[in-house]
């Protein structure tokens, strides 16, 4: 994984000092709250319902064991002993004191971490495929390109006061595990003309997003050469910075600009800006990309038939619970004998994405012992050990099982994405977490979770859609109806390569009613499905009507 050199470290250290100075000037009254707010936001500090929230960046979701331990230390020292992993592969702490923020940033900087640009109207942390560098189906590791974009976007002087926030995702596989087309810019690394072994380049999808106006990004350029990647991105941003709407914050995202101009006209403007920029020296030396790639070289994988590094009793491998976990929570790896193992942060009845300091330390230990000291944060709010030798899986599972981290529910109905909702968030209209808890408990009790197979359920507590409800096979949106929480159900969304936006079934439900409604929709699927069909496939084949009849008939 990427490690800082003295340049990177000096920049992060300077940022800590800058923020300390800004806090001092705020306290001295030299900065008004209006002037201070965007500065603290660009250091990840939000004012929530009950306290400050600090969002720490995990660039492209990759972190080392030492970094995970530092996150655990921060949870204990400055928060309530836990943290919350987010849908943008970051971690949030929900009970932070403003006066501690400078010290937390300094602690983070000591392990090459920061909270730079995790909020505010700027280019946010770059996200990527959580199985990058491991997945059997990837073309190349997408993270070197994400790292190059991280450097480019950090402290970018022209793009710190954009019309609105700006999110970029990079993938390099035909399978989309990063909701790439639902980002402001989604980049897929491809071979020219799709020819095997062809020159690598970047496909640009611009203008996707969720929020109150969900849109799927159109492809505006099929192939940007890698030695023009940054220049093209800069052109995309400049057109947005100049022409994105600033009169209405709800119409300020780039998706609205692309939609109002039309993808063709936006592309034309980008191309004109790009042509102009080509001789402006925007592009980094290609040697930098090559330098970055060396950090993402494969670890020294063991032979496929090598024995386990642990003393775990052989009988563990035959336990049904272990086998179910391996079936459900591991992903094929490019190296023979290896898998990527998903650590579920979705225990039945738990808070999606939360992990305690002890759990974080355990995950760090497992990464160090069995996973080349590397972890990933998934946008689905779970953690991955990307490179685990199959012979070590019993020991990994045993340790996870002892810490409440072995729920075998990856991509099943219990693996719910939920925003913090009205329990924490000042924007929310309704609670998300209790609904997620009730649904996971209901399906655990009925035992239907395993039978339902892949069924992605996502819950947002307001129309800002942080819980990705538009992209759920089943989506739930909490709204406020005359002072009472009400939940709208939608079906048919997908954030994968078959990206689709979910459609609302009809009138909303009460908190109890929505749990019944989800079960009703699941039962329609179980009744109607044909061999091998996922919920989403059945919905696409039979349409909304049978679901509506069951829900409202």
């Amino acid at each position, binding site marked *: 994984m990427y490690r800082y*050199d003295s*340049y*990177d470290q*000096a*920049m992060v250290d*300077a940022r800590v*000092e*800058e923020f300390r*100075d*800004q806090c001092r*000037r705020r306290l001295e009254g*030299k*900065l008004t709250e209006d*002037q201070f707010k*965007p*500065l603290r936001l660009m250091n990840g500090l939000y004012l929530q319902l009950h306290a400050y929230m600090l969002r720490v960046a995990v660039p492209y979701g990759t972190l080392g064991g030492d970094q995970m331990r530092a996150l655990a230390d921060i949870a204990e020292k400055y928060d309530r002993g836990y943290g919350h992993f987010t849908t943008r592969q970051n971690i949030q702490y929900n009970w932070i004191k403003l006066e501690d923020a400078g010290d937390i940033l300094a602690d983070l900087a000591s392990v090459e971490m920061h909270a730079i640009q995790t909020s505010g*109207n700027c280019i946010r942390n770059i996200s990527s495929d959580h199985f990058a560098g491991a997945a059997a189906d990837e073309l190349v590791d997408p993270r070197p390109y994400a790292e190059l974009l991280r*450097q*480019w976007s*950090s*402290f*970018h*002087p*022209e*793009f*710190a*006061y*954009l019309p609105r926030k700006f999110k970029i995702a990079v993938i390099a596989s035909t399978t989309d595990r990063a909701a790439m087309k639902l980002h402001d810019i989604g980049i897929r690394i491809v071979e020219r003309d799709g020819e095997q072994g062809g020159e690598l380049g970047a496909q640009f999808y611009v203008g996707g997003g969720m929020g109150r106006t969900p849109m799927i990004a159109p492809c505006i350029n099929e192939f940007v050469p890698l030695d023009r990647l*940054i220049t093209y991105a800069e052109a995309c941003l*400049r057109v947005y*910075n*100049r022409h994105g709407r*600033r009169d209405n914050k709800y119409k300020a995202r780039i998706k609205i600009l692309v939609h109002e101009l039309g993808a063709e006209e936006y592309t034309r403007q980008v191309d004109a800006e790009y042509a*102009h*920029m080509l001789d*402006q*020296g*925007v592009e*980094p*030396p290609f*040697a*930098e990309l090559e*330098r970055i790639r060396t950090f993402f070289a494969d670890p020294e994988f063991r032979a496929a038939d090598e024995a386990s590094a642990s003393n775990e009793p052989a009988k563990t491998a035959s336990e049904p619970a272990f086998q179910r976990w391996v079936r459900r929570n591991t992903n094929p790896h490019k190296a023979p004998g290896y898998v990527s193992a998903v650590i579920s942060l979705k225990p039945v009845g738990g808070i999606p994405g939360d992990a305690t300091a002890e759990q974080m330390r355990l995950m760090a230990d497992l990464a160090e012992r069995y996973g080349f000291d590397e972890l990933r944060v998934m946008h689905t709010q779970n953690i991955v050990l990307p490179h685990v030798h199959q012979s070590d899986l019993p020991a990994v599972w045993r340790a996870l099982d002892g810490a409440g981290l072995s729920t075998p529910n990856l991509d099943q109905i219990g693996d719910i994405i939920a925003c913090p909702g009205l329990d924490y968030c000042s924007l929310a209209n309704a609670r998300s977490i209790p609904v997620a808890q009730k649904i996971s408990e209901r399906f655990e009790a009925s035992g239907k979770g395993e039978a339902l197979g892949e069924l992605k359920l996502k819950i947002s507590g307001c129309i800002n859609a942080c819980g990705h409800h538009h992209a759920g096979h089943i989506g739930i949106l909490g709204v406020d109806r005359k002072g009472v929480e009400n939940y709208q159900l939608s079906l048919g969304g997908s954030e994968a390569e078959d990206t689709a936006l979910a459609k609302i079934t009809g009138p909303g439900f009460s908190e109890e009613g929505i749990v019944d409604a989800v079960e009703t929709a699941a039962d329609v699927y179980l009744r109607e499905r044909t061999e091998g069909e996922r919920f989403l496939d059945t919905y696409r084949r039979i349409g909304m009507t049978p679901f509506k009849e069951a829900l409202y008939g």
Partner: protein
Amino acid sequence: MADPVTHSDGPQSDGQGHNSGLLRYRDDKAASHAAVTVDAFVDQDDALAVRIEPGDEARELIPHLARVKLVEVNFPAFGDGRGYSAARILREAGYDGELRAVGDVLVDQLAYMRRCGFDSFDPDAPLDAGDVEAALARWPDVYQSAADDRTPIWTKRHA
């Protein structure tokens, strides 16, 4: 890259003495021409100073840059970042005259403005000289190229 502008070591007071809050990072004398709107500037052959508002098209000035003595870029609100792009566009087009940020110009945006090519500042509220100095000395390096002459980290790594 646009031609680098001449930098002096620090801000100078305005030779005209009409504005005590003016910060300049140029060695030449401050322009004192009254700035007109972009539309007026394009129409009037004798205008020498122009003020760009956030919604204006900075590129309309490019054919007329030879006679421009001063470009003011207005920031009615510090959170409106269009002026940063306007500044870079003019520097990229070769403009090396005075480029002045005016309006809601605050110390925490100064370093980015310098990087985008601004070399003078006329803030609505005067800035603390110590804070300005600290802000401009803050960053040991830069990650990306802009309109200033700083060498990006990714170039230094491979020099």
